[in-house]
């Protein structure tokens, strides 16, 4: 179980002195139970991406803490690699998230090499198995990201993230920008994966249609805070917050 308490991230506004700071994340308390799918929706500027970066250890919080099974995960001094093997992140643009010079094999093997201690042989087996689970032909292993389609790039990114068997997967607008049909197949893959891996999903998206499809628990974020947490089971009236209602309106014709 992941618990975040009072997470804050403040950015200093340039040229306005030390007193003037803009909170990107302004006191977030959030609990993620194991194996559950969560979605986080919010308008741009609500702090969703910053929260994702905080939870994956890319940036440090100005205040607050977060715990995995009771143990604090905020990196104290050095980079805490073990955090990355527990919580992984998948970014929005598949193409730019892959090093253009790396082959698919190297891209997928990279987290395995850095975060797990396995032999080269085991590594190869793991990569091949991941390709199969991603429904990608092994022949693509020699290609570079520029030689893959948008959907294939996304699958490689997912393979990288799950290679270390993380407890929590955070998706930062991970299916925005994909064609709807490709998007659907990726989301179906993710649903299947979750059943197999039993990991927790946090799906950050501005598209409530995607949120409602993939998750049962929907957080609404506004101005750096969690404004609403609704448990969705097919009934859209559980959403009370005006922003949620606005989003729902946008997907009805």
């Amino acid at each position, binding site marked *: 179980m992941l618990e975040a308490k009072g997470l804050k991230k403040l950015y200093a506004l340039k040229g306005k002195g030390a007193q003037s700071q803009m909170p990107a994340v302004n006191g977030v308390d959030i609990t993620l139970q194991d194996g559950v799918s969560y979605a986080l929706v919010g308008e741009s500027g609500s702090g969703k991406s910053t929260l994702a970066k905080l939870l994956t250890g890319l940036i440090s919080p100005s205040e607050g803490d977060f715990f995995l099974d009771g143990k604090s995960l905020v990196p104290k001094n050095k980079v805490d690699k073990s955090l990355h093997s527990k919580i992984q992140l998948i970014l929005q643009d598949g193409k730019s998230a*892959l090093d253009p010079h790396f082959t698919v094999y190297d891209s997928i093997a*990279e987290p395995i090499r850095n975060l797990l201690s396995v032999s080269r042989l085991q590594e190869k087996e793991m990569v091949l198995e991941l390709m199969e689970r991603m429904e990608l032909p092994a022949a693509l292993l020699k290609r570079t990201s520029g030689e893959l389609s948008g959907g294939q790039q996304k699958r490689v990114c997912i393979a990288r993230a799950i290679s270390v068997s993380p407890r929590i997967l955070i998706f930062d607008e991970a299916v925005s920008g994909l064609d709807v049909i490709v998007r659907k197949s990726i989301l179906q893959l993710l649903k299947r994966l979750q059943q197999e891996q039993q990991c927790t999903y946090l799906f950050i998206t501005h598209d409530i249609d995607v949120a409602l499809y993939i998750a049962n628990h929907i957080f609404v974020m506004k101005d750096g805070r969690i404004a609403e947490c609704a448990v969705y089971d097919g009934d859209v009236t559980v959403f009370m917050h005006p922003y949620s209602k606005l989003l729902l309106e946008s997907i009805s014709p």
Partner: protein
Amino acid sequence: MFRKVLRKPQVVLGLIIICIVLFAAIAAPLIAPHNPETVNISGKYVAPCAEYPLGTDQLGRCEFSRLLYGARYSIGITLPTLFILALTGLVLGTLSACKGGIFDKIMTILCDIFIAFPALVAAIAIIGLLGNGLQNIAFAIVISMWAWFTRMVRSYSVLEMGKDYITAARIAGCGTAKIVVHHLFPNIMPQYLVYLSTGVASTILMVSSFAFLGLGLPDGISEWGAMLNEARTGLYSHPEFLIYPGLCILIATAGFNLFGEAMRDVIDPEDAS
């Protein structure tokens, strides 16, 4: 990509010139008809003939041989110097961009200071302190130019660091060293190589300029810049001895520049896509 590169006439021309210069530098002892240092006062200013293809200068030395050996100095000083500059720039620039924070700030200020110093003044000061010698010329060039290379690499690196795949690499557990070596180096190399190629040209010019001013090299040496200097006395009587080394400098730098600029045109549009 290489095929596309070779299709451009500037690249081919540049490459040809570079090859000629390199060949002259390497093969000078074999193809030079005479020893470039051999003085023969009685045979001064001999007209071009079979024995002396470009004639002899005011001290009776074979001009052609001197020009060939001149290539050795230009290339011989330039390439190692450039190598050191390239390496320094690469290491300091990438570290600066990667680490950020205080290290980056200090590095930036240092670079600003060194760049503000005119290279020539720095060179004169250093050679004045350390005395003559090829190593000291190289040292002077490195001191005056390292900041340019570092700053260039830093700006390429900062650009790459902002890209998603670096964030993804961090999350995949890469430390600073791995990010720099596995991700930054390969992705900034193409642009950096272009920069280095034109850097060769500047360095050749610097070496020649120093030699022209009489800095760092012993008298009488057959370096092109030094030859230019010596030929000044014969400006009106034998202007060709100014033209020959001048042309050599011009062609050598042009060759490297052409190659570098044409490579940039090939690489940049690829990068843009």
